[in-house]
Structures are given as structure tokens and as C-alpha cells.
């Protein structure tokens, strides 16, 4: 059942509740209360997962840990927890991780709706308005253990807009939002100017006859916008934050209240990103960072996190040349590094990308951290998701095997304590031949 289409059942035990005739409802309730049914109804929101090896978001898998979920939140992670009034799910022999967090995606976006090209700087436009919560790729991501994702505006503008962190499943889009208007997308390199054309005589017949048309033009546009915003902030005159959301957004970035998600793939763009961060005092996170292996020390010294390109992908925008072990090198250099599937890069599911990072040298624990707790920290949502610890949302994935194995599949995915993907109840589709009977011989 598509969880986006049907109301979510309170929990698995609710499915087995029998239909009660209205006339008998009052009597039934009275009887139920008398017989202590109230206590068992209370157990509907208590879930105890036990028996699995557990990765909490940091460190190695641990045996014997149990997870107690109450009202959609993790109440406790520990050994020998009380199962009183709880639905106990024995997942012995399985592997548990927090719900995966994909730090850069285009989930729910139609390709034509990711870039607002009426202007090359649209910092204030929220991507949330373009997200289709019923898009199939949300369900696909959920089926591969991704429970939270950052959805970013496209990269065809210098300032593309504001992203959103949201759950990949849940009843309503509004309830799925973890953090809205977060992360200002800023794109360096050739992509942000690739649609523009320079004016060389004649009559300009398209809005794309405009600046910037070069890499340096892109950077100047960034500087120009920050200068203007800074000037307006300094003067305090003629600037109404309510009427000028673009400037308001840029000022938030200048004030360090908003992370600037800086798409920088080549070495020169990465260095430019670090320069801009220093120049304007903005807080940046490098998106993709394909050639980050060239500037490891500089990135580490600047304390800038990197949301790295998917390691399985070989060809990257801006003709950036990857190294197989960039993620390992970044981790070794002390850089906070997460793994993304990205936008239109042809990545594998997030957990497979983590597996590729291991194949290219990253230790297993670091790879799992790079798709759970680390992206949650970078996105500023680690108080909700990314780890299995008290008070966080009960976003939990039960895997049949070590999740980094190429054979692994999520058996159960819980979002807010609710089972929203049941891999064991896999639909078996009868594959039949479209044509019956013997092959035709008359036609040829």
C-alpha cells in the first residue's frame, strides 16, 4: 500500500482490530475498559525492537541493544529494556541502522521545476513549493532505507533558492517537513552560466541574453549580490525585509544564520568557495566537491563540511575529475563528510553509494556515519534524525544483512515509529507472457 495515498494505520496491531458494530460499541468499550483493554490499547504506541545488531549512528554495530519507541520517538536504546505494554518485534539476526539521511536530492521534483530562470539570482525561492509529495521516487528512496532527505533547488542559477529537509514518507507533506527554507543553494562553475548568452550585436530576442556568461561572471554575481545585501543591511534605509525576501535571505546568509550550500566540483571552484566563505564570513557546506582531493588541508583548516558526490559515478558536471577515494581522503584529513546521491548524477541508492565508498577505502563505520548522523548534523537536524538515541524520531531501518553488503535489503522501515515499508511483504508479481500459444509461423 502506498503510504502517501492511504491514511496511516496507528501501528501494526491496529490492523488486527475487528470491526465493531456501532450498537455494541458502548457495551464493548465498557467491557474493554473493565477487562483492561485500555492497557493493551496503550501498548499500540509502544514498540520494542530487540535481537538485532544495532548501529546507533556512531561507532560499530553493537549486539544486544534494544530500542524502545514510544509515540513515534525513541525513548531508550539499551540492554534488557522492559517490554511491558509494548509491541515486541523480534528482529534477531537482523541489522538495524537509523533511517538514512540523503543530504542532497531532487526527490519529488519534476525536472522542469527545479530552476527558476527568470533571474540568475533567486535566493529566496523555496523549493518546497515545487515538491510533489506523492512522487514515486520518495517511495523508492524509502524502500532503500532513506527516511529523511534534503531536497535542493536546481543548479542553473547563481543563487538557486532554499532547500528543505523532509521525511520521505508520512501522512501529509506539512507533517513530513523537518526543516524548511534551509540551505541556500549557490552554484559555482560553468553550470550557473551555461544557459546564458552574451550579447554580440543584433536584437536580443531572449531573456538568456544576460550575464553571467563565464565562471568569473558567476563569482562576480555572487559578490555583487552579497555587496548589495550588505549595503542594505548597513544602511537600514529603504529595505523592508517583508517586501524584499531575496535580500533578507542573503542577509541571513551573511549573518551566519543560513548555511550556503555551495556547489563546487572542480578544484578551482572549491578554492573559490573557501575564499568567498572567508571574504564574506558566510557558513558554507561544499556540495559534490568532486575534486576535493586537491585541497584537503585547506578544506579541513576552514572547517567546511563536504557533502560528497556519489562515489560510484564516474562522470561529473563541470568536467570535474574524480578520485576513487576522495571520501576516504576527506575523512582522513578530518573533514566532516557526508555522501549524497545528488541531482541527476545517475547514482545508485544511498546505501550502495556508502558501500562503494567502503570499496574505495572508507572504513565501514565511517561510511554508515556518512549516510546517517553526519548528514543530519550538516543539515542541522541531528536533534530529530540520523541517530538512534533518546528523544529522536523513531526512524529505523531493519536490514536482512549488513547494510553495506551488496545483497542487503531493508526488511522494515519505520518512520516516526510507524512501519511504512515492509520489505518482507514484497509484492510478488506474476510475470506472464504477453502472447499465448506457440510462436506464430505464418507471418514470416
Amino acid at each position, binding site marked *: 500500500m*502506498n503510504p502517501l495515498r492511504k491514511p496511516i494505520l496507528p501501528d501494526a496491531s491496529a490492523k488486527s482490530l475487528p470491526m465493531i458494530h456501532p450498537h455494541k460499541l458502548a457495551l464493548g468499550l465498557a467491557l474493554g475498559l473493565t477487562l483492561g483493554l485500555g492497557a493493551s490499547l496503550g501498548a499500540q504506541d509502544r514498540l520494542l525492537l530487540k535481537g538485532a545488531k544495532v548501529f546507533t549512528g556512531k561507532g560499530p554495530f553493537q549486539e544486544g541493544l534494544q530500542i524502545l519507541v514510544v509515540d513515534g520517538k525513541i525513548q531508550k536504546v539499551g540492554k534488557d529494556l522492559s517490554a511491558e505494554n509494548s509491541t515486541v518485534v523480534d528482529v534477531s539476526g537482523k541489522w538495524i541502522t537509523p533511517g538514512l539521511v540523503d543530504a542532497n536530492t531532487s526527490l519529488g521534483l519534476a525536472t522542469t521545476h527545479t530552476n527558476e530562470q527568470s533571474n540568475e539570482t533567486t535566493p529566496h525561492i523555496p523549493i518546497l513549493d515545487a515538491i510533489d509529495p*506523492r512522487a*514515486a521516487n520518495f*517511495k*523508492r528512496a524509502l*524502500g532503500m532505507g532513506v527516511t529523511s532527505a534534503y531536497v535542493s533547488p536546481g543548479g542553473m542559477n547563481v543563487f538557486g533558492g532554499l532547500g528543505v529537509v523532509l521525511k520521505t514518507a508520512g501522512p501529509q507533506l506539512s507533517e513530513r517537513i523537518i526543516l524548511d527554507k534551509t540551505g541556500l543553494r549557490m552554484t559555482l562553475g560553468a553550470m550557473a552560466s551555461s544557459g546564458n548568452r552574451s550579447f554580440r550585436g543584433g536584437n536580443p530576442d531572449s531573456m538568456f541574453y544576460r550575464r553571467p556568461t563565464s565562471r568569473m561572471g558567476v563569482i562576480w554575481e555572487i559578490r555583487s549580490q552579497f555587496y548589495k545585501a550588505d549595503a542594505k543591511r548597513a544602511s537600514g534605509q529603504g529595505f523592508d525585509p517583508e517586501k524584499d525576501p531575496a535580500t533578507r535571505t542573503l542577509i541571513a546568509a551573511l549573518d551566519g544564520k543560513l548555511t550556503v550550500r555551495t556547489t563546487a566540483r572542480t*578544484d578551482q571552484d572549491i578554492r573559490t568557495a573557501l575564499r568567498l566563505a572567508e571574504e564574506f564570513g558566510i557558513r558554507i557546506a561544499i556540495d559534490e566537491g568532486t*575534486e576535493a*582531493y*586537491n585541497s*584537503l588541508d585547506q578544506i579541513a583548516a576552514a572547517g567546511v563540511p563536504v557533502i560528497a558526490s556519489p562515489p*560510484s*559515478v*564516474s*562522470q561529473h558536471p563541470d568536467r570535474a*575529475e*574524480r*578520485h*576513487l*577515494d576522495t571520501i576516504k*581522503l576527506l575523512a582522513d584529513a578530518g573533514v566532516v563528510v557526508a555522501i549524497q546521491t545528488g541531482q541527476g548524477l*545517475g*547514482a*545508485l541508492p544511498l546505501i*550502495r553509494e556508502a*558501500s*562503494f565508498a*567502503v*570499496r*574505495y*577505502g572508507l572504513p*565501514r563505520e565511517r561510511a554508515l556515519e556518512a549516510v546517517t548522523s553526519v548528514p543530519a548534523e550538516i543539515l542541522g537536524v541531528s536533534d530529530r534524525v540520523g541517530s538512534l538515541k533518546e528523544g529522536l524520531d523513531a526512524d529505523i531501518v531493519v536490514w536482512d544483512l549488513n547494510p*553495506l*553488503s*551488496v*545483497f*542487503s*535489503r531493508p526488511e522494515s522501515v519505520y518512520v516516526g515509529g510507524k512501519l511504512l515499508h515492509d520489505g518482507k511483504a514484497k*509484492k510478488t*508479481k506474476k*510475470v*506472464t*507472457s*504477453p*502472447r*499465448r500459444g*506457440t*510462436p*506464430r*509461423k505464418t*507471418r*514470416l
Partner: protein
Amino acid sequence: MTTMTAKHIVFAGLTALFASALPAQDLTVVKAGTLYQGRGKPLLKDVVILIENGKIKKIDKGTKIPWNAEVIDASKSYVMPAWVLAHGSGGLDRENESIPVTPYLTIMDSVDPSSNYFETARRHGIAILHILPGNATQVGGRGVLLKPSGRTPEDMALVEKAGMKMSLQATRGSRSQHLLQIEKAFKAALDHRTEILRQKAEWEEDKKNGATTVEEFDVDKKIDKLKKPLLEMLDGKVPVYLYVPGANDVANAFSLIEKYKLKAVLVLGGDCYKAVDLVKRYGRRNPGKLRIILGPKQEVVEKDPVTQEETLVCPAKVFFDAGLPFALSSTSSSGRWGGSSGNPALTMPWYQVGTCVRHGVPEDIAIAAFTEIPAMFLNRAKRFGRLEVGMDATMQSLAAAPMEPESKVRMLLFEGQIIYDRSKDPRVKQLTGKPTQTR
């Protein structure tokens, strides 16, 4: 100046005689930490593989290592048969000629030994490749069976004119027109031969009636060279690798095969798994003749057009459930690191095998689908695909079992010769570690 005495001459002569009579033994020993020989065989630990002139002579724990053997230490590695690719179109200048019926073309003329494709194949543990023209054709030409190592196509080739490529993918016009064109080409070739045979009969008749002839009537010489490869295929001398793009072409493929009695290997792409019942029935009618190579996409998303519900289908699992044997294949892109279209993981046999296992195909069957089954389709089952005494020493050593996250190919051997050594791979050096200087 010294003169050679008769004694010297005799001695030199005898030495030369013995040297030529006793071929130099090429001995290699592989010390394997873990050995996977193939389906149905138990994993062996700490064994020695003795290789003589490229063939496995002995696999044993206590084998004494000959003093003159080259020793390859894989005692901390996982050794298994090299992967075998039965159908691919990589490492070429361009995959398809613009003319749709070109049976006379040969891939030998297009193989680029310096292509990244072959380098990538070695790095991924593929030691045997059957390279054929692409799928955008009707009758594309002859493939070549090769090893991914060598300075020239001749160095690489094991069989220069292997299978003939045909495709049912309609690239110009309708599917029915595409079929018609193929049949037209068949008919033209057969008619041509009939005409030659008629001329010969006439020539013989004339000869019988006393006509004087300058030369004998040689049918082979009279046959048009452009049509000859097609006639060889129609005579069943050459196997045809028939690409079937979708389920609704499977029936046409079988009709074509049965009508012309083609010796065919089916290369099933797209949603051909939907025609599995049809394939199964054909297999029952033609026992031992069904040969299937599945396309590289082993996870296909099917979307219900009404409910938009998606189902993930693994074609290999569908064929496995139907009890049909199949070979797996990988993508053929020649990009910088293995792929210019699609994810490079699809060029990696371990990933393809892993995907099938994830969907429920038993691991040994999935591995066999990239080792011994393609070797069987290529009529090389007694040489490649397994590691047994008497077979070719064509194997790979890996850091761990192939589907483990930390696994990587350390060494690749073809007939006992090292054709890939990761420690000497310049590309690995170039693409890992901190660069010594920026670009």
C-alpha cells in the same frame, strides 16, 4: 678466427635437436588463501594451484612447489574463475555501421586495444570477452572472442570471426518492416546461392554435352563475398547472437530461428522477462538449444499506469524461477572509468551478480551466470569458467570474496599469464591518494 671442429658441430646439433624436441615447460604456482572453483565445489583454504603451460595441472594442499616455477602469492586473497562476458560491444570505434545489413563486417577491424573498456574489464576481473556489433542493426557482422590484453587486435583475439550479430531492435521504421528487411537479406543471400547452383548445374550440363571450358566451376569462388558470411550463418556454421529488445519481439525471434533453423543465442533486453512462458515453451520444444544472455539491467522498475504503483523486477530472478539457465552481461560503455552512460556499477560483474542474489537468485547460480554458463555458450566450457584440473588457468585473485564491500581485483591471469596487477595499475595510482600536484 676460430674454426669449428666436427665434434663441436655434432654437439651443437644434438643440443639444438633436444631443445626443439622438449618444449620448455612454463610452470606457475598460485598459492591461494581461499579458492572458489565453481558451482558445486566446496571452498578450499590454503591450496596450491600448479599451472603448466597455461593449464591447471594440480590443485592440492600438499603440492610441492617445483624449483623452476614462478610463484604467485595469493595466500591472503580469494581466488576464483575470471569473469566471462558472452556479449558486449565495448572497446570499439563505433558500435554500429549506418547500413543495417552488414554481415560481412568484422569487429576485428574496429577493436581498439588501447580503449579504456579493456583496461576496465581487466580491473573488474573479466578475462574473456565476446565483442560484437551493437544493437542498432539488422545483421551487424561478426564478433571476436578476445582477451582484454594485447598491443594489437591480433594479440588479443582468441577467435577472430566468432558469432554473427543480429538485432530485432527497429531503429528505422516499424518492427514489421525491420523483420521484413532481415528476411529480405536472408532471401537475397539464399537466392544468390540458388542462382550460383543453377549456373553450376547448367555448366555441368554443358560440359556433359561436350562444351569446352577453360576452368572448373567453383561454387565457393562464385558466391558473393558480401553474402557468404550470411550464408554461413544460415547454414548453422556460425552462431547468431540475436538481440531481442522487448517481450513483444520474443515470438518473432523464435519464428525467425525456427524458420531458418538458426543456431541462436538470445540476448534478451528490456522487458523480455515478460515473455518467460514463451521462452520456457520454446526450451521444452528444443531441449539443449536454448541459450539466453540477459541484458545488463537487472533491476527494472515497472509502473502501473493507473495506480502509479511501482514494482521492482529482476529479470534474472524471473528466468531462474522458470528454471531457465542464463548468462549475465554488463554494459559496454567505454567511458573514462568504465561507463559513459548509466552507472558504472553496471559494468562490474560483481555488482550484477550481487543484484541478482539480492533478488533471490542463489549465489552460486548467479556467479555461474558470469563464469561457466557464458563459457558454455561460447563453446569453451572445458577451458574457462571453472578452476579444475585440465582447464585453462584463467582466474582472478581478489582482496575478499567478490561481493564483499572491501573486495577488489588484485590480479587477473589468462592461461597462467598475469594480465592485470593492481599494484602496478597506473590508473589506480592516478585516481587514488593525494595528488602530487594539482592539475
